[in-house]
């Protein structure tokens, strides 16, 4: 897991690219493809320069067909390759659902291990960029309901690279969600303020070589005593801002791996604080926050001093014009803190 070489400042985009670069270099079985990822380098430029460096057989553009991208990757995985594919926006994974649920997730099981699909399926997710309902979704809950998949969401460049390498090396299929609002800097929900770049953030300092951040390990983003925040992706920073602005001494846990989950870290923290707020951007009902709440009440029942609070996106499509009324910003998160503390 240790880094092989020195560190340099990287944005999340650069960190992801660096992870793919490292893996393309180390493993001839790694191939990268998706819509616009080849010559152009991806609409978010995550794969820029990789086709030039590794050739069109290793990094290439695909037809606009998410089921084809994933389906072809399954076949390649069965052959023995290790495809890393991009879905241009998480909002567009739906055409690939059958391949993901019925094939990727179940291939090892149904063939009793004869065939595996060790794919990494990258997709930018989340809102805050005025993308409207088809460029803003956070569909992680779907994936966590599908046994056989791993679901990962990094919140900073260091983790992004380390988790992406770990995902590519993993023999299980990994859904790798990238909070696009974090691509260029941490975002605390104050959209009216200037963007802070990753170069000013400690986790923007990234080793150039190979290293991994283990899957199934959560990180304590901020230690605290009054309540536990379970969150991931963009909401890590929003929760931090909420803690700071409200003066609540929140312990913020960045789950990083949504499923399988580092339950121990979660349970330990909630047992300590006795209160829990779950924060995510996805719609509330049957969101991953529901699973977290169900687990926490199951494992920490006798330690809980207040109901677990969920601060989430509303149960509506992600609207374009009312983006900031939809986005669970620091005020809403802080209000959630207050509610669990008042009880």
């Amino acid at each position, binding site marked *: 897991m240790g880094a092989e070489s020195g560190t340099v400042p990287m944005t999340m985009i650069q960190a992801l690219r660096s992870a793919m670069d490292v893996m393309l270099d180390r493993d001839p079985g790694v191939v990268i493809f998706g819509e*616009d990822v080849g010559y152009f380098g991806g*609409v978010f430029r995550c794969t820029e320069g990789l086709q030039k460096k590794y050739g*069109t057989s290793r990094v290439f553009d695909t037809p*606009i067909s998410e089921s084809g991208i994933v389906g072809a990757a399954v076949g390649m995985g069965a052959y023995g390759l290790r495809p890393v594919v991009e879905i241009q926006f998480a909002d567009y994974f739906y055409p690939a659902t059958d391949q993901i649920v019925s094939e990727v997730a179940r291939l090892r099981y149904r063939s009793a291990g004869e065939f595996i699909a060790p794919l990494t399926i990258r997709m930018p997710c989340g809102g805050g960029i*005025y993308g409207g309902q088809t460029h803003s979704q956070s569909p992680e809950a779907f994936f966590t309901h599908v046994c056989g998949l791993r679901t990962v969401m990094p919140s900073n460049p260091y983790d992004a690279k380390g988790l992406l390498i770990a995902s590519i090396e993993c023999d299980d299929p990994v859904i790798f969600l990238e909070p696009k609002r974090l691509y260029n800097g941490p975002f605390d929900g104050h959209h009216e303020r200037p963007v802070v770049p990753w170069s000013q953030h400690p986790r923007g300092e990234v080793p150039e070589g190979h290293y991994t951040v283990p899957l199934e390990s959560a990180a304590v983003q901020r230690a605290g005593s009054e309540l536990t925040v379970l969150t991931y992706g963009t909401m890590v920073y929003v929760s931090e801002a909420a803690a700071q602005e409200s003066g609540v001494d929140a312990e913020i846990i960045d789950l990083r791996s949504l499923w399988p989950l580092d339950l121990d870290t979660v349970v330990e923290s909630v047992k300590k604080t006795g209160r829990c707020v779950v924060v995510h951007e996805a719609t509330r009902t049957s969101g991953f926050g529901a699973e977290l709440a169900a687990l926490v009440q199951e494992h920490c029942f006798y330690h809980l001093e207040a109901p677990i609070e969920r601060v989430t996106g*509303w149960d*509506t499509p992600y609207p374009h*014009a*009312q983006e900031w*009324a939809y986005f669970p910003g620091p005020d809403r998160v802080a209000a959630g803190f207050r509610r669990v503390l008042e009880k």
Partner: protein
Amino acid sequence: MSDHQPLRLHVPEPTGRPGEHTDFSYLHLSSAGEIRRPPVDSAAADTSDLVFALIRVLDDEGRAVGPWDPGLPPERLKAGLRAMMKTRVFDARMQIAQRQKKISFYMQSLGEEAVSVAHALALGPGDMCFPTYRQQGLLMAREVPLVDLICQLLSNERDPLKGRQLPVLYSVRKAGFFSASGNLATQMPQAVGWAMASAIQGDTKIASGWIGDGSTAEADFHTALTFAHVYRAPVIINVVNNQWAISTFQAIAGGEGTTFAARGVGAGIASLRVDGNDFLAVYSASRWAAERARSNLGPTLIEWVTYRAGAHSTSDDPTKYRPADDWAHFPLGDPIERLKRHLTGIGAWSDRQHEDLKKELEAEIGVAQKEAESYGSLADGHVHSAASMFEDVYKEMPAHLRRQRQRLGV
């Protein structure tokens, strides 16, 4: 088997990249007037030759020639020219408004205006179009109030879609313009379903679905072809082959060595490949297809060969992946220039009239823009209320959404 060479992966490339000149010979053109016009009741298989040809009416001198000349009166042509020019002026203005940060995002249809405008003129009232984000020409041809459109783009308090959709994803039911989706290709089986419904009800209205070359790779394109063919749905399937899908060339969507029209014939659907920058050809082919549909003869697929002259969207920079001056070399030219030339040639139009019309349209759009901007914009916060965000998820607001709205305090 060991006497075989190693296999290798073929990855198609465009014939021109930045700094080069595109070799457009891959397009396989026909000359104007060259291609036969079969009877509308032809069997699908009898259009097999047409999918590798290119139906054209306007020749290089702007004359209308051959069996596909629709013989339209000049007034209709001028109405078409006007709608195309209006589309182009509108697009240019909105591009600027986006750069001025008045609107958050925009997608123009520069260079492919004829496809939607001439098609719209060939349809009847009540026919329903299922568009993508690049068919604003349909709206211009159907004279949808500009203020409504600009309010949608501005996401302001008068946005008919209540600020819910990204700019350009219009919905204008009364103009036969179905709600545009951000997810590609989904509208195609819907267009077929609408047409099936019309047939089930014994109605006389037809549907017209739109899809880009790149998006034909999506599953729903296939689904639409299958359903349209099986039930002989009264639908026109328009494939706008503008050569590009964001940064990928049409060969990445499967255009190499075949055509998108050929997919239609394979699926048992009468199919045409048409010069999409030739207003007369677009009108004429659209009429042919509409006539088929309305006569219970089933669907038609039309591949419109055109060129996406502008960037994919305001988030895109095409000079990164194709020659900057590519459009100037595109052999099918500019649809507005070509129709202008024709009209001028038949003595129904002049440079002067053209300039005047352009100014008139600029003014008209300017006035509309001004009015729309007076209702605010996303940038200045004059948008539909946060409370309205919870409406229309269901017909009536269920308890959980009322609770959520309450929690938001609105």
